[in-house]
């Protein structure tokens, strides 16, 4: 399944995975396969609405478009989603069974929300629920979308949205798995020429005869979900969760709370210790999923050498750049406000942690743990930010220990 968007054109390479270029439509493809909610952040006119509209065409009548407005309330939202549902709520006759019957009828697989930041927090919360495939009434979640549902939202929220104090920022980083700043990947002049020569209508185009490829998209998702995840990806993800949390003396960045990064002292200030927080387990899942999808897409595009580390790092970059884990002051001062440049610096540093020597040590450790043994010397090879690996190998060794 390779997505080809009808109107949106962008030949700017976003990244390169396994030796093949990845474009905006590939990232959209990956988010659909991975069922990863996608937020397209960018300035007006960068084509993000058209991109979302084009994706809707793949879902026939199983997609829904909502234009975010600040005067929209939850009532209006549900009115749009399913008028009957709202009526049932209003009349107060609905039972759990009735709600289930009504939510079953809501079979949208894709929700597109244009200008999401315009929505008030209560509406946003319900929209995020819809993205994740359920409606919550009185604390009970009712699933929608026949098991597959994903959301694409757009908006221009400036730099502030990643600030932890910002309510919208928190909501976005919690519920949108992948945030791409389209301003960094604007279409090339040839794309613009193609768009202009094709049509001079400046309005966003709606395809009147949408092609329903919902089944092939949901199948692609199932196929991806069933694929076995290489063990290395779990190790890399564990490094990002635990290794990046480490500070000298065994301190934890997360435990420092608001003391990070200002209270980090000594030579650590020249390290990524003050640039990035560890990822959350939820983000780790998104990174692994995106990496699996990118590996699959790159294979379909002709890649023959699959580098698990490469796709994990590229996924880490795009999942984390706007997820609120970067030191915003450092991004502004050292990386000229570019979250992607800051992530590149983190990736460069991470690469030094996964050199051949370390990979060989990890392989040795896995073998040791598989035999149910604990070699103290080998375990002590994993110290500092690799201390988590020592703990992990010890536990795995205990699990594989031969009963006496």
């Amino acid at each position, binding site marked *: 399944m390779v997505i080809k968007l009808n109107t949106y054109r962008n030949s700017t390479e976003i990244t390169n995975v396994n030796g093949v270029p990845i474009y905006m439509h590939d990232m959209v493809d990956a988010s659909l396969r991975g069922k990863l909610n996608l937020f397209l952040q960018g300035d007006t006119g960068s084509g993000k609405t058209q991109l979302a509209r084009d994706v809707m065409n793949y879902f026939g009548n199983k997609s829904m478009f909502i234009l975010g407005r600040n005067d929209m309330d939850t009532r209006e939202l549900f009115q749009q989603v399913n008028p009957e549902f709202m009526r049932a709520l209003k009349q107060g006759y609905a039972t759990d069974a009735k709600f289930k019957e009504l939510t079953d009828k809501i079979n949208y697989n894709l929700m597109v929300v244009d200008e999401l930041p315009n929505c008030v927090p209560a509406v946003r919360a319900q929209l995020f629920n819809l993205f994740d495939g359920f409606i919550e009434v009185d604390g009970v979640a009712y699933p929608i979308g026949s098991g597959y549902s994903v959301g694409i939202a757009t908006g221009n929220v400036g730099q502030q949205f990643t600030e932890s104090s910002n309510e919208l920022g928190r909501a976005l980083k919690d519920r949108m798995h992948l945030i791409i700043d389209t301003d960094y990947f604007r279409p090339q002049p040839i794309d613009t020429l193609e768009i202009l020569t094709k049509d001079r209508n400046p309005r966003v185009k709606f395809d009147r005869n949408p092609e329903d490829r919902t089944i092939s998209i949901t199948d692609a998702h199932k196929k991806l979900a069933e694929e076995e995840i*290489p*063990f*290395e990806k779990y*190790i890399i993800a564990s490094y990002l969760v635990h290794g990046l949390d480490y*500070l*000298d003396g065994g301190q934890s960045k997360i435990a420092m709370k608001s003391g990070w990064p200002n209270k980090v002292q000594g*030579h*650590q*200030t*020249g*390290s*990524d*210790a003050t*640039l990035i927080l560890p990822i959350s387990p939820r983000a780790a899942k998104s990174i692994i999923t995106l990496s699996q999808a990118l590996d699959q897409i790159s294979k379909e595009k002709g890649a023959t050498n699959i580098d*698990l*580390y490469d796709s994990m790092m590229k996924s880490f970059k795009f999942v984390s750049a706007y997820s609120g884990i970067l030191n915003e*002051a450092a991004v*502004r*001062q*050292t*990386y*000229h406000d570019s979250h992607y*440049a800051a992530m*590149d*610096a*983190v990736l*460069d*540093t991470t690469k*030094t*942690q*996964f050199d051949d020597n370390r*990979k*060989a*040590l*990890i*392989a*040795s450790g*896995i*073998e*040791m*743990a*598989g035999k149910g043994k604990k*070699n103290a*010397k*080998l375990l*002590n*090879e994993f*110290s*500092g*930010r*690799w201390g988590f690996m020592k703990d992990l190998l010890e536990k*795995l060794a205990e*699990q*594989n220990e031969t009963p006496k």
Partner: protein
Amino acid sequence: MKLPSKVFGIRTDEAYSEYLEQSKTKKEPEKQVQPKIPVTNLEGYIILPGDLRSDKYHDLLVEVSRLKYSPKVEQVATQLGLNLQNNDQGFIGSINHEQALGLNRSLENITLAPRYFNDFLYLIYQGVKDNKEVYDAKGKKVDPSLLKKIWDDITEVRSPWRAEWLNAKFKGESKSGILNKLGILEDQFYITYDKVMDDGGVKQVTEELDEDTLMKSRTPGISLENWLKNPTIQGLPRKNVQDGNLYYWKPTNGSVAGFGAGSDGTLLSCDGDPASSNVALGVRAKKIK
């Protein structure tokens, strides 16, 4: 949990056997330190190869211009209680020696000691005069016209005055106890500076001044070219340095070093007052590559 037999393309059984074999002779693992962020986006830096001369050190990145005011500098300056701004020439001036070195240190930079400054200037000289290829931090060849600008900025005899502090503090002691008209003769000198170690680490060291150091001021002067080509191991002029137009003031007890150029000439001062400052006296940054 079933563990794989291969990770990162490495067979785990082979890796483990190899490890066990090597571990028989291997010492206890060293404690791992926090990794440094590799320098990726410093276009304003030039690579100073550590093997420019026979006694090598780790490659360095030297800023092409003196330290400029920036939001990052502002943040650090606030912490240090400094009120800084760019002068008319676009670099930070009006800082004394201690402030200059402290500012660079807080910015995770290192101030150039005479040895590294001499090497840096010699590299630029070779780029300008001998067309030697010089590379920026990204590994891109530096345009010779930029090298010429850097050379002129540092050495050209013209107005306005441009100067920078160097990372060197001198101390004199009397080894022989000889009395002269000025008191006790200071015949043993020490230099304190931040030395780049082989492994890329930086350590403040105090060394006896090379005994071949020129300990007589010449105003003017010594040959800039000859000093660049044949300095002492600490980057200062040798006793047999050729005559020329570069003003030179020898180290004195408690003095610091600086280099500058203006309409009256170019100078290497080793008798600087650490407490003095001047609007056109700034500092240059270097980083470990």
